[in-house]
């Protein structure tokens, strides 16, 4: 029992750390990728190749003056970024970060909790993430913030539906809501149990999920809640110092978690091709799997950034049209066709 | 294991608070929220009984309540917005004429 708690505690701390680390370096990556895509170099002063830049940014956030506007709703003003950060971190709990390690005869799974309603849990957490933005935007008592908050809530709710529908098609395929089971179903090797990644069976679902993930993370081209050309800074116009940092951090954590979910649901999670054919030690496979998972996550984070510097921002009505008139019907159609194929 | 009557008492309290809110407040949107509170109290009772009777149908019923609650809220808020659009005022006083 003690070892179990210890193992879970360690796992929590490690995953927490990794999440923060990845998020921190996502900010760095964001700037680097932006620079490369624009034929620039990007930050390169702090440390070699600028790899200490996240530290510098963090330091800067902490050192900056903490401004809480006079007319704001002070308690909620602080609560907003906290919720954003909290919900962002909570989502990582159910993601299977790897197979299981066997140490001293005990098997340790690289997952904090294997909820049998894992996908729904992620969904729930994502859906309450919007409160951070809404509360912060409202508490700022600034019309730009309020507009950002309103946009965020409408956008999140709208795209959650399409996201849910796209997942339903996937769940119809897998027959389970547990993320670990979904991952394991995509495992396999050459010897007769060869399975493709889910993306092969659910390409349309994947695309919808991907688009919705962009919207849920408020990433370009769906970054209307904070678009600086229209709303100054959207919901975080009034924020400064570490509270702003929390919001930005939360966004990158969300991106990380979204990538992890996409990788798990559609790209085999910690599985990699021919993993069972190499004849490697199980622990080694687990470790390689985890690395592979992070590579996949890294690719998707890169993809998020890639898209950001490619596609211009939507107009608000376009956003809504896309969500309600394109994605939802397509998702429903996708469910229908998936069901049809499953029945046949 | 928590005795079932604890849950029933809790739901009774929550339900009463919801009723109190509906009767006590005049702000339409808060009334709406208090109705949600009532529905949640009901959900709690349902789940408690379902657990107690070892019968999943109670929990299934809760799904329907949730679906209905969502639909109701959507309609209610649409009505509110329609009223707002019609009167062109942000003041909730427009609903003063509701007499109860």
């Amino acid at each position, binding site marked *: 029992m003690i070892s179990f708690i210890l193992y879970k505690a360690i796992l929590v701390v490690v995953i927490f750390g990794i999440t923060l680390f990845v998020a921190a370096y996502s900010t760095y990556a964001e700037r680097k990728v932006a620079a490369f895509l624009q034929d620039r170099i990007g930050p390169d002063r702090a440390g070699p190749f600028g790899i200490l830049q996240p530290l510098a940014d963090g330091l800067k956030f902490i050192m900056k003056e903490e401004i809480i506007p006079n007319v704001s709703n002070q308690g909620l003003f602080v609560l907003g970024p906290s919720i954003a950060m909290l919900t962002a971190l909570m989502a990582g709990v159910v993601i299977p970060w790897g197979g299981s390690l066997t140490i001293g005869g005990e098997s340790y799974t690289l997952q904090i909790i294997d909820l049998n309603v894992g996908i729904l849990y992620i969904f729930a957490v994502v859906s309450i993430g919007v409160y951070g933005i809404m509360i912060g935007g409202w508490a700022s008592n600034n019309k730009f913030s309020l507009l950002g908050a309103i946009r965020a809530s409408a956008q999140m709710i709208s795209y959650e539906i399409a996201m849910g529908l796209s997942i339903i098609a996937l769940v119809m395929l897998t027959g389970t809501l547990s993320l670990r089971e979904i991952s394991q179903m995509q495992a396999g090797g050459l010897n007769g149990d060869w399975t493709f990644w889910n993306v092969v069976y659910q390409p349309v679902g994947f695309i919808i999920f991907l688009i919705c993930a962009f919207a849920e993370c408020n990433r370009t081209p769906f970054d209307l809640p904070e678009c600086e050309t229209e709303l100054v800074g959207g919901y975080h116009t009034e924020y400064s110092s570490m509270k702003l940092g929390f919001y930005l951090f939360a966004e990158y954590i969300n991106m990380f978690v979204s990538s992890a979910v996409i990788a798990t649901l559609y790209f085999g999670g910690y599985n990699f091709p021919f993993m069972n054919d190499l004849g490697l030690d199980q622990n080694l496979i687990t470790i390689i799997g985890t690395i592979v998972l992070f590579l996949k996550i890294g690719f998707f984070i890169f993809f998020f950034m890639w898209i950001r510097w490619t596609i211009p921002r939507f107009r608000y009505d376009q956003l809504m049209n896309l969500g309600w008139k394109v994605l939802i019907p397509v998702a429903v159609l996708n469910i229908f066709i998936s069901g049809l194929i499953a029945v046949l | 294991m928590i005795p079932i009557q604890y849950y029933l008492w809790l739901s009774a309290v929550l339900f009463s608070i919801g009723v109190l809110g509906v009767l006590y407040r005049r702000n339409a949107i808060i009334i709406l929220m208090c109705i949600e509170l009532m529905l949640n109290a009901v959900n709690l009772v349902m789940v408690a009984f379902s657990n107690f009777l070892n019968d999943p149908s109670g929990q299934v019923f809760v799904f329907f309540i949730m679906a209905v609650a969502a639909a*109701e809220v959507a309609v*209610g808020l649409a009505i509110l917005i329609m009223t707002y659009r019609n009167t062109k005022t942000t003041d909730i006083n427009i609903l003063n004429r509701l007499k109860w």
Partner: protein
Amino acid sequence: MNALLVVCGLGFVSLVAEIANLKKRLHVAIIIGLIVAVGLVVADWNSEFSYYNNMLVFDQFSLTFTALIIAVAIFWFCISSPYFVGQPHQTDRSALVVFTMVGGIMMVSFHNMAMLFLGIEILSISLYVLAGSNKDSFISNEAAFKYFIMGSFATGFLLMGIALVYGATGSFDIGKITNHIAANASAMPDFFYVGLFLMLVGMTFKISAVPFHFWAPDVYSGSPTVITAFMSTVVKIAAVVAFYKIFAQCFEPVQTSIVNAVQVIVVLTVLVANITAVYQNNVKRMLAYSSIAHVGYILLAFVSNGDNSEGTLFYYLLSYSTASLAAFGILSVLEGSGGSTSLEVFHGLFHRNPVASICMAIALLSLAGIPPFAGFFAKYMILGMALDAGYLNLTILAIITSLIGVYYYFRPIVVMFIGNPTTDRAPLSMAQKFVVGFLALVTLVAGIFPDALINLLG
């Protein structure tokens, strides 16, 4: 069930019509579809079906009321074409009305609390919207809002009641509940009775009986008149039948324990509704109070619960809804674009449009319970049942209040026949004339030959 499916299908057809650009034929299509639905009900006549683990049971009782709901709705559709054709959101309105009927049919045929609940909600939610469908009118908005708030409040009570009853009996199935109560009639826990009481409160809200009626006049007078007509006929049928099914069929073994409460409701309802109606100058509002009052009389039938209470219920609802529909139909036409429903629109109607005025008079006389119209006979049967059950006081009260009723029902009649016409406009279309006339005829014929109708549910 077939009828339910057809009606459901009509709702979808309505929605599709918007896309497929078939708006112009939609109205006729719905009427035809409903006629088909009635045909399907009749085809199932005298048989009993249960569907999906007894979720819905279509026995003679359900079938009869299903047929009544659909039939009344057909006439309603015939009268109400100005509300739909050529108006914005025509298809949405049609679809919502049809969905309301789906809810209504579920409410008369449910055999599981889940179906009851969903039926009530489908009906209510569509109605909230329809009550506010006159979007530019503030009173319409207010009506929708008030209806919505009170409706969902009532739903809360109803659900709490269902939950407690579920806890006490362990099932949502009507049959199982009845059996369980019958088996343990003396050993039911206290909260079961509280649940019963809460359900009673919720359903009383839904049928708008005093003391939970206060939303009804505002809602009825605020909503578009045709929608008010729909509410006071189709919706009322469904609600009352659901009330009856719950308390007289499902909770039959413990019915005595709620009869006292319902008696109080009856007394309050007939008194308050009739007396308040006297002071109304708005005919729509007056009819609203009248519909509340009629609920009181119907509940009297529930209280006395005689041998033929189902037949009485059916006959009363039939007579009430035909008369009410005719009255509201004429009112909606007279209201026209002016939107006024005060007594003045009836001034001198007899000189402007004798057919309308005579049909209106027949409808009002029937509502007032004057022989030989159906309303009299319905009231008579209820009084008879009450007397038979020994409720002499209630009977006398019902009589006195219906006398008060005569006063206010006669006010439109008086101005119709002796007032000077304010305008010479009384634009009843041929179809409307026909339907209203037919309804008046039904009122008369059903009053003269009630036997067949009563024995439908013998």
